[in-house]
């Protein structure tokens, strides 16, 4: 028999749909770190990331009834989050590439400067932020949401082959940025 007992995702979703906040929170607790990382790497601002995840949670709670039975909570959350991030980016409009993202926002969560490999970490993130929006999205989906190319393709409306080539291009670009920085 499948272990579909209490505490498994279908059960928690059912409870959450009935208004059980705790069940919802348990579902959320499984993925919130990845949600935040995804948002941070896509929006490039801690405050924006915080807003995006926060909005996603509220939207998800309100719209939970729309979650179809065969859909996973995780995928659904990432779909909403993706839209939130895009919306934030659209709102912000065209912005200069490579601003100092970490200095902005209130909820600064960066590790202290004394951390030994902080410099390197900072560079990596900075390089990442220098990528274009779509490139960031593709990489964030792959790295933080664990999506395969076909799934990313569905989200971004392009073929898996396109996703693959753009992903590879983005990673190459990232490497070059890092090499130049050194």
């Amino acid at each position, binding site marked *: 028999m499948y*272990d*579909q007992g209490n505490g498994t995702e279908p059960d928690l979703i*059912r409870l959450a749909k009935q208004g059980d906040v705790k069940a919802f929170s348990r579902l959320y607790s499984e993925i*919130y770190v990845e949600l935040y990382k995804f948002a941070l790497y896509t929006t490039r601002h*801690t405050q924006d990331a915080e807003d995006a*995840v926060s909005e996603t949670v509220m939207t998800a709670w309100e719209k939970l009834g729309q979650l179809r039975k065969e859909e996973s909570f995780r995928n659904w959350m990432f779909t909403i989050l993706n*839209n939130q991030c895009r919306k934030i980016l659209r709102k912000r409009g065209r912005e200069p590439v490579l601003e100092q993202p970490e200095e902005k926002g209130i*909820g600064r969560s960066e590790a202290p400067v004394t951390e030994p490999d902080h410099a390197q970490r900072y560079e990596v993130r900075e390089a990442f932020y220098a990528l274009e929006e779509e490139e960031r999205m593709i990489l964030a989906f792959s790295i933080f949401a664990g999506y395969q190319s076909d799934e990313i393709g569905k989200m971004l409306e392009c073929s898996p082959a396109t996703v693959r080539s753009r992903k590879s291009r983005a990673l190459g670009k990232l490497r070059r940025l890092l090499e130049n920085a050194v």
Partner: protein
Amino acid sequence: MEEKKREEYIEEKKAEQNLQQNIQEEKTEDQDEKTEKMLREQAEDIVVPDSLLPEEIEKRLMEQEKRKKKKLRRRIASVAAAACLCLAVGIPGYMLITEQDRERSPAGAEETSSETTAASSSETASAASQDSLLATAEDYDEIYEYVQAEKEYWDDVSYGMEESASDSGSNAGGSSASSMSAYDSAAATGTKSASESASGEEYSDTNVREEGVGEGDIVKTDGKNIYIVSGERIHIVGTGNAQMEQLAQIEVEEGGEPSEVYAQDGILVVVYTKTEYNDGENGYDGFYRQYTCADIYDVSSPENPEKAGEVSQSGYFNTMRIRDGYVYILSGFYADSAAARDDQAAYIPEVQGKLIAADSIYMPQNRMGNSYTVISSFALDDPEERTDSKAVFGNTGICYVSTENIYITESVYEESDSSVNQTSVRKVAYGDGKLEGAGQTKVDGILNDSFSIDEYKGNLRLVTTVTRRSAQPDRDIELFSSEQTEEQTESNSLYVLDENLKVIGEIRDLAEDESVYSARFMGDTGYFVTFRQIDPLFSVDLSDPENPKILGELKIPGFSDYLHPYGEGLLLGIGMDVDESGTTTEGAKLSMFDISDPSDVKEKHKYVIEGMYSTDVYDYRSVFADVEKNLFGFSAYGDSQKYYIFSYDKNDGFQPELERTLGTYGNTRGLYIGELFYLVSGNTVEAYTLDGFEKVDDIVL
């Protein structure tokens, strides 16, 4: 000579270049992997802001729920005020509505309810019975257009989602009736769950939704053996001898996930979902495709099950029904909206490897959709000879199967032309393996589970929870919160539809601000439980289908998730006990209602199992109920999962017969054969005496 050398040289150079390129590509792939790994590692120490920690989110949601309740109350007050104005103007039609309203004997608390009825009835069209014909597709092209339309619609919605984030929804005890599958649907008259095996021993069958319509489950018995779905295997456990013994194991095709079995007359049907990965044309556009398969075994000698046939159809398994020797399998198939028009297999479902013909595909009402319910049938004694197959276009929600019709329902949210959520109903008539589309309609509100929809004497009765959104700004509400401009109110409706799905009788605006938690139609009377803080159990007289009447309303704390007829004049409720604030559950609760006078229903006895925060009765098949033996059982969850058996005494109330702590969390089933009760949980089966519930045997599979 020179020329030749030159050519050779060029060839060599080319080969070298190719080689270099290949090496380069491999290198890139390698590097890509490393870069990804590095990115992942570098992100490991990112600290999530406190405000996003699960416990903080939980607090915020709790707060929001409280606020919403307040606002809803305000909202009702202002609607009522507006409605009074309307009444003052005096439109003759209201007389009728208020008349109806008086009959439902509202309790003192809702002095505003009759006015509310008047107001909302005038502003909302009654349950639409639009073009009720179920049209088949003209050709695959038409279907393709529908799939594309659905895609565009959802693209729009998901972009627009944020804007309306706070408007709608299923929240706080709210519309628990989302589009869950038939799996959580349910009904069962339950009183006749016992059958007799060939050996003459009495045994219990699965608690089914509709008497006379068989259902598959994870555990089945034919009165001799127990068939158990466990992981990727089916175990056959013999009960004929002094001790249980494992007779055989059946494995499904590799990659298949067994869902349910069904056993009858020496035949075992094993249903599983198989996922196939297709590489696509150029190796990059691969995709997953799911099939629902049924393997049919001859188990007349259960030690040696012999495969007698296999059938398959597109989509993931939804539910199966058995009637008069025919098996009906329902699966849900998703069209790939990214597919090219000529890639028909990506958006047209298959049965036995063949595309379903366009004239066997029924189209949806909204001119768009991306999923189907695929229904096919076969005879138990001649499985490979498919008798019929149809696909009903549109999303699948709760399925209800009466003895003559299959009803496929879908919850519709966010329709631009309606301020309320709705349920579309599609009706497919069946009999002797044949399927025929019979009609479709849409009603306001959504179903809680399959007990909220019931066919009786050709009429279909539905009880729904209606969420009405109103976009007009309301100053009164803005005082509470600045972020919300849209408001919603919940109420409940009951409809009676004739065989053409035309509404012939209805009651609207019942139990404002509450939603249906359980329902049970019993012939000419219907019962349903709504819940917000207290649990009114409504009884409805449906003897005149065109004029349904609320007979009574019993208010008690807590709610029932599941209602089961328990013999003459009694109705059993299994649910939760809730404290007076309506927010904390205090344990699982059993209620026995005296329904001998439906206009004056009483809670005769109640029993609270403390420390339990939920039960498994939402899947009615996990309930064991045998009214003649006066026993019922189910699982409840607290610190651990426990299985309970109770009996009921008219004077002394509920009597615990068995309380068994289970080793693991999971699906559990109880059944009896002859004098023994079998408890199947995880990979163990335990046997108890039916008389006294003493454990006599167990087996680990």
